[in-house]
């Protein structure tokens, strides 16, 4: 890694690629992209030492809009990709990104186990409570009575998934919620998430103005949580019980052991093959 002191200060713009995003005008993800690049600039990470990893969906297109290394993989598997990369290259800064469908539905099992495993990486989820890329179906975080999708004309009737509660129960080491309308606040939160050891979940409410135009009202609904972050998981759990989904800020920071195997060569293959000798 480049020595931080000697490195020139990079600007957020340097972390952006020249590609024009596929997102609709007004999409919250534009702002999240700028938060990610601001966070990288704030930390002044050498571009080559950072990787942004994603699955499939509108927000999962984000790696190509950055200028660092990236992997736009397959639906639901961002955390598996990121885990393999970080465990075998622990010196890299690894950020996984994606949406609520990618992360909590098709990728739900990986989400639970990434929280449990607690590899040192940051997961930025742009939650808009809808599948946008396939043109507006209910996601795991959609309210049960949302009946605007042809796929679920009477609403899903199914209780929404609570990412923060699942993350807390599964053992994530840092849990926060932000709002895309506050790019500086979100950038600060991402910096905190990256700096905090272990698995960090940052849920960002990021409106889909195309399929969920009513989400434009979110800016009047979000509020900084009235309490400070806690490292007491039972206190965090109690707060989540009365949470309406619009409290922003860091909910929880834990001190769990980080999964980081030591990669040290101790034996030669010639020594190992002796195990087969008669």
């Amino acid at each position: 890694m480049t020595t931080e002191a000697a490195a020139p200060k990079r600007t957020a713009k340097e972390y952006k690629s020249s590609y024009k995003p596929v997102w609709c005008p007004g999409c919250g993800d534009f702002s999240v992209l700028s938060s990610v690049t601001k966070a990288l600039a704030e930390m002044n990470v050498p571009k080559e030492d950072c990787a942004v990893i994603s699955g499939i969906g509108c927000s999962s297109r984000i790696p190509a809009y950055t200028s660092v290394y990236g992997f736009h993989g397959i639906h639901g598997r961002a955390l598996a990709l990121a885990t393999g990369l970080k465990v075998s290259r622990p010196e890299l800064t690894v950020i996984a990104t994606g949406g609520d469908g990618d992360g909590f539905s098709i990728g739900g099992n990986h989400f639970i186990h990434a929280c449990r495993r607690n590899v040192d990486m940051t997961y930025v989820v742009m939650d808009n409570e809808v599948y946008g890329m396939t043109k507006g179906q209910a996601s795991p975080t959609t309210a049960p009575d949302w009946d605007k999708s042809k796929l679920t004309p009477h609403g899903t009737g199914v209780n929404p998934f609570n990412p923060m509660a699942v993350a807390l129960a599964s053992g994530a080491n840092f849990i926060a919620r932000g709002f895309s309308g506050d790019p500086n606040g979100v950038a600060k939160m991402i910096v905190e998430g990256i700096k905090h050891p272990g698995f960090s979940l940052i849920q960002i409410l990021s409106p889909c103005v195309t399929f969920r135009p009513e989400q434009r009202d979110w800016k009047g609904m979000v509020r900084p949580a009235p309490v400070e972050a806690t490292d007491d998981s039972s206190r965090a759990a109690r707060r989540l019980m009365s949470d309406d989904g619009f409290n922003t800020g860091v909910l929880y920071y834990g001190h769990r052991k980080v999964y980081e195997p030591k990669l040290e060569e101790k034996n030669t293959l010639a020594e190992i093959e002796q195990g087969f000798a008669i």
Partner: protein
Amino acid sequence: MSAESISIAFTGAGGAGVMTAGQMLLDTAAKAGYYGLMTRSSGPQIRGGEAAAFLRLAVDPVQCPDDRMDMHLAFDWMNVERFSAELPLDSNSIVICDEAAGDVPEVISATGAKIFAVPLKDTAKSVEGGRLNMVGFGVVGGLLNLSEEAVIAIVEKALKRKGQEAVDSSIAGYKAGVELAKTVKSDVALSAAKAKDTDRWAMSGNEAAGFGALRGGIRFCAAYPITPATEVLEYLAPNLEKVGGTLVQAEDELASIVQIIGGSFGGTPSLTATSGPGLALMMEALGLAVSSETPVTVVNVQRGGPSTGIPTKSEQSDLNIALHGMHGDAPHIVTAANTINDCLFTTQWSVFLAERLQTASIVLTDQSLGQSRIVDNKPADLSFFAKRETVEAGVENYHRYAVTASGVSPMAIPGTPGGEYVADGLETSTDGRPSSAAEDHAIQLDKRERKLADFDYGDHWADIEGDADMAIVTWGSSTAPVREAIKRVEAQGKKVKLISLRLLMPAQTEKFDEALKGIKRVLIIEQSHSKQFYRYLRAYYDLPKDVKLFNRAGPLAIRPGEIVEQIESWS
């Protein structure tokens, strides 16, 4: 009368120590200078089901089970009918059983084998801490005149962890068994060993695949357990740690395959192992590896399918999914190990190919190779080691998917300044930008196909032996019985050529044509009910007019004698 090779079966309830007795017998014979192998068969239960260890001990190297059993030691008669088809006894065989185990089942007595009922259980009870399996091992050891010194050394090695008391009671049990053997009349005997001072290895096919992975350069593995592949992963877990790598136990196969793609994207040669159901789950991600040109290797240890099928027993029926399981046009490598030993080289070579060609390679082995243990000469170390084409720091105007002469585009590894790119499952233009343009799709499809098609795979694409106007074309675990059958007919003055394919995809049509020069008749041998290998040959190669197929579903092993019959009945 002493023989160059003898076969012995141990059967009993799961948990009775059948496998331990078998393995101790094999290890003792190895110590005494013999070659041999042990295949295993068991029911789906972990404990309380049925288990069988089938051994073959020999003066010279052997690679597959023989046609018949000389000796069968039954610890009990639990569910023995489930094995009877895998246990070829005849009037020259002897069966030793416990006198308290009840009537000899019809499936056993009908074979005409000579049956000796001895007090196995009572003898075990008479020894303090005595175990039934050690008494049974002792009976066989006594009948074969095994060196007691070798037995003691093996028991000590195997049971050291459990303490001296366990060692002592096991040796006492063994000796009591040797005494019991004096009441059994047997003329099964093995000729003198010749290889005591020869450099030999004992390993299972799954361990061999694991070590082959290390030799090929694998330093990251993500693992999800599945029968009969788990031992590959269990071998790699401690040994990767020793060489500066690591293994992560993943939450499922969807994760294990994608984790290794992540590891490989980071520049670390990466591998996983699985079996049919797991391979099915991995297919989407394997397409990602092909499309993003991120090298990965998957060792698929085949078992009976479809669905859960027969998880504990062997079959060669994952060929179709390995060749054609991916959606879209996804050229990749498919290889097959053809002996227990060859699991080492074929895995090593497949890692090399995946890395060299930046694609996915699927190595096919099967339960009869993976879970069998062989004692053989130490295999040669062929130097194939992962060597990926990469770019240097400071590269300018880097195009990750640039069109090159070989079709292989140099890969930037994270940490390399100037090489920053985004790997993608989306089709891209040469610089990695997602593209749905027809032209970009054609360029990348051509490139991904060409890099595999143009590569020179050397002589390793197949094992070709002998010269004749008749050839047997086969693959995987069917190869060893074919090889032995050819040796037997050669002793009668008949010649048959062997062609065993190691590289199944990309198909080596020109080399195959060359190998078939002068061949008038082809006999195809495979262990698949739907003739998957036969259909593959028909699809990719020109065969002579005279073609005969001998196929059958697993789990019954194809035996050398059956192949001899196929050859002789086609004269």
